[in-house]
């Protein structure tokens, strides 16, 4: 006789089953990142009532709608401002920003660099598919040189952002990059950031078979996964200036930055306490006693 130890899919309790199947294309890697995220939530043993997922717009922006956690699907590019508000209003929350490269680095680029500069305690997971996928395959700031897109039929000639270097330069406390091939390493990084205080940034390179690869004759999602397997090299602690992506070249993955910088709320509290003394009441204490929760709160 045999018995089943884990008869349910570990990711299933985290999904809104009534919304399945999801809209992501066959071979898209976003679902794979969600698997790793679910494992990270299980392994890190975080209180799920104190986790909030914030997404912007785009293919990856759908994650907030599919995860059965407190989730927030915000306006385009503004995932980080909404998340900043959440974190400041309720500092006990683990606020995770789960969005795409277009949302976080194009329309939301300004918000990202300033959140990193302030080192506010957000966990940013950026699924990078190298293109604006949901809108039809236009050139994104992350599209590598010479790639064909709908807005660059002769190939992209503008330089692309190097996301880890940008995040580090802006002040992030934790910077890592993995691909959807590196599921276990990705899950470990996502687990690590729950224990890390400050602005954490994880870039996950993901296939886009429908818009990026098809137009560039790079095959389907599985071909992209094989490409990641063959062309990626783990270099933990590599200088982020050297990890820029090219269309066909090596993909450097690993944990690049793990440092301690003063967090935004600590700085705020120190400053106000220094200036105001006993007159300053920390808002974390106020958050424990919400003053507007009653029926007459409005």
């Amino acid at each position, binding site marked *: 006789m045999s*018995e089943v130890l884990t*008869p349910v899919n570990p990711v299933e309790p985290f999904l809104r089953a009534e919304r399945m*199947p999801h809209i992501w*294309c*066959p071979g*898209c*890697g976003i679902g*794979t990142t969600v698997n790793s995220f679910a494992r990270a939530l299980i392994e890190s043993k975080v209180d799920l009532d104190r986790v909030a997922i914030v997404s912007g717009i785009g293919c990856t922006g759908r994650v907030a709608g599919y995860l059965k956690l407190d989730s927030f699907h915000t306006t385009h590019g503004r995932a980080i401002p909404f998340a900043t508000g959440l974190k400041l209003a309720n500092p006990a929350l683990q606020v995770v920003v789960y969005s795409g490269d277009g949302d976080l680095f194009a329309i939301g680029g300004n918000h990202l660099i300033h959140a990193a500069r302030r080192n506010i305690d957000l966990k940013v997971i950026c699924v990078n598919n190298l293109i604006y996928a949901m809108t039809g395959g236009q050139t994104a700031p992350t599209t590598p040189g010479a790639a064909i897109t709908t807005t660059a039929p002769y190939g992209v000639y503008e330089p692309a952002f190097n996301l880890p270097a940008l995040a580090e330069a802006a002040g992030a406390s934790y910077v890592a990059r993995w691909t959807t091939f590196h*599921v276990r390493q990705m899950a470990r990084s996502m687990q690590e950031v729950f224990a890390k205080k400050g602005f954490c940034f994880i870039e996950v390179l993901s296939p886009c078979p429908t818009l990026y690869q098809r137009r560039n004759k790079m095959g389907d999602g*599985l071909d992209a996964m094989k490409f990641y397997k063959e062309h990626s090299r783990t270099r933990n602690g590599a200088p982020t200036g050297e990890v820029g992506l090219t269309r066909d070249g090596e993909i450097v993955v690993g944990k690049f930055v793990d440092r301690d910088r003063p967090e935004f709320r600590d700085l705020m509290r120190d400053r106000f306490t220094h200036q105001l003394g006993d007159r300053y009441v920390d808002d974390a204490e106020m958050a424990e006693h919400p003053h507007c929760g009653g029926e007459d709160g409005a």
Partner: protein
Amino acid sequence: MQRGSVSILVERCKGCGFCVEFCPTKVLALSSAFNSKGYHPPHMVKPEKCSGCDLCGMYCPDFAIYGWKVTASGS
């Protein structure tokens, strides 16, 4: 003695083949059968080799497959 097995939700599968490609013991293959959306879901071709590692479950972007370990009861 089979050490593990997989469960497959055929109607969720989109036939990407990630599980087949990255199974460490090559337990799976895409079947010739269709699901209702016209994709070929995987099936186990070497069930005795499955270790129940759930790597297929970590790769599956459609949450359609997961592995689990089998233990002999009473041992």
